[in-house]
């Protein structure tokens, strides 16, 4: 019995990534990182900025997302997101630009708590990428 399921990442422009045989996916859900294995219960959640890790038998793929929705149903995982980058071609200068943009937007005084939290998360994960 295989432990594999299907994952698809869609952004508004195209189907960004799709794979038939992944064994585990870790998504940065709003309330904390969430690992999904085969036969997980159907779930809908939304994402905070962070890294999606996709494990299949011998490869591991990492993507950075800003926001998005994740839906898991009948061993189909779909991630809808408007901003996604493959970590492999995530350029250092792009990271830095995103980082400084995020820091700037944090200075805006009329942010509500949730937005503030999201931006802080963004900064944190961007930093961890740029140092690694």
């Amino acid at each position, binding site marked *: 019995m295989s432990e594999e399921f299907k994952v698809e990442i869609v952004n508004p422009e195209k189907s960004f990534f799709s794979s038939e045989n992944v064994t585990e996916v870790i998504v940065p859900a709003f309330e904390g990182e969430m690992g999904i294995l085969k036969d997980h219960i159907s779930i809908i*959640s939304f994402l905070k900025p962070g890294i999606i890790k996709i494990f299949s038998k011998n490869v591991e793929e990492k993507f950075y997302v800003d926001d998005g929705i994740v839906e898991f149903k009948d061993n189909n995982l779909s991630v809808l997101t408007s901003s996604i980058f493959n970590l492999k071609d995530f350029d250092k200068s792009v990271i830095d630009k995103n980082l400084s943009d995020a820091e700037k937007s944090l200075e805006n005084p009329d942010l509500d708590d949730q937005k503030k939290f999201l931006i802080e998360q963004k900064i944190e994960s961007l930093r961890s990428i740029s140092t690694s």
Partner: protein
Amino acid sequence: MPSLDDLKKRITSVKSTQKITKAMKMVATAKLRKAQENAEKGRPYSERMNNIILNLSGGVSDKENSSKLLVGTGKDDTHLCVVLTADRGLCGGFNTNIIKKAKSHFEDLKKQGKNLKIITVGMKGYDQLKRNYSNQIIEKITFKESKNINYFDADKVGKIVLEKFEKEEFDVCHIFYNQFKNVMTQIPQKQQIIPLQKEENADTPEKDNLNYEFEPDEDEILNNLLPKNISTQIFKAMLENSASEQGSRMTAMDNATRNAGELVDKLSIEYNRSRQAAITKELIEIISGAESL
């Protein structure tokens, strides 16, 4: 009767027009393929988004407190219309069809005594609407600079709409665009995006959402999702629009090329006839001159 020289000039000018329309047709054909591809690639996103929202909104427990984007403000006084058109002309009835549809909607609203606000996206829409509705146009947006349609642009429009909604500047929002059916036919569409209209033929049964686990909970996800859906819907409309624009332009330019060809034929016949007539006339003059000697 135009002189031979005039006819010659006209023939050359029609021929060069024909060259232009032919080139435009070929450019449109090439762009159409790309636009169509993009529209198809973009579909899964908006479809899934729609599905999730349908699943969620079925399960919303507390209708009173749920997002205004879903249930509306409770009023129906001010309507916002986002009219999406092309930035360029020469594409047949493409822009006119959207404007026509939008105008008939505007007139309906006027009759019902509602307030009207308009946002135009694309130059042509603004040009055509500013004569009659210049007071109602509150914003004009154009993406002439960006070569391809990207989500970033759509998001900008979406944010403007949301911002105005939060300030309670309007109650209901419609978008107008052309849906791409095939190269020959594009159907002007009116779509309500605020409050979200549930499609009647929703084929996801209600009990479906019982199987879902939500994290954090339905309402929160929905509140997070609905603003995104606005941008998504606008993006979808923009994609459909760009495919329609190219398709429409292709057909229009094809017709223009054919008409120019017909015109060239007709002018050439006329040119040859009058040339022959001039020769005959000269001959008659020479012959009759020789006879009189």
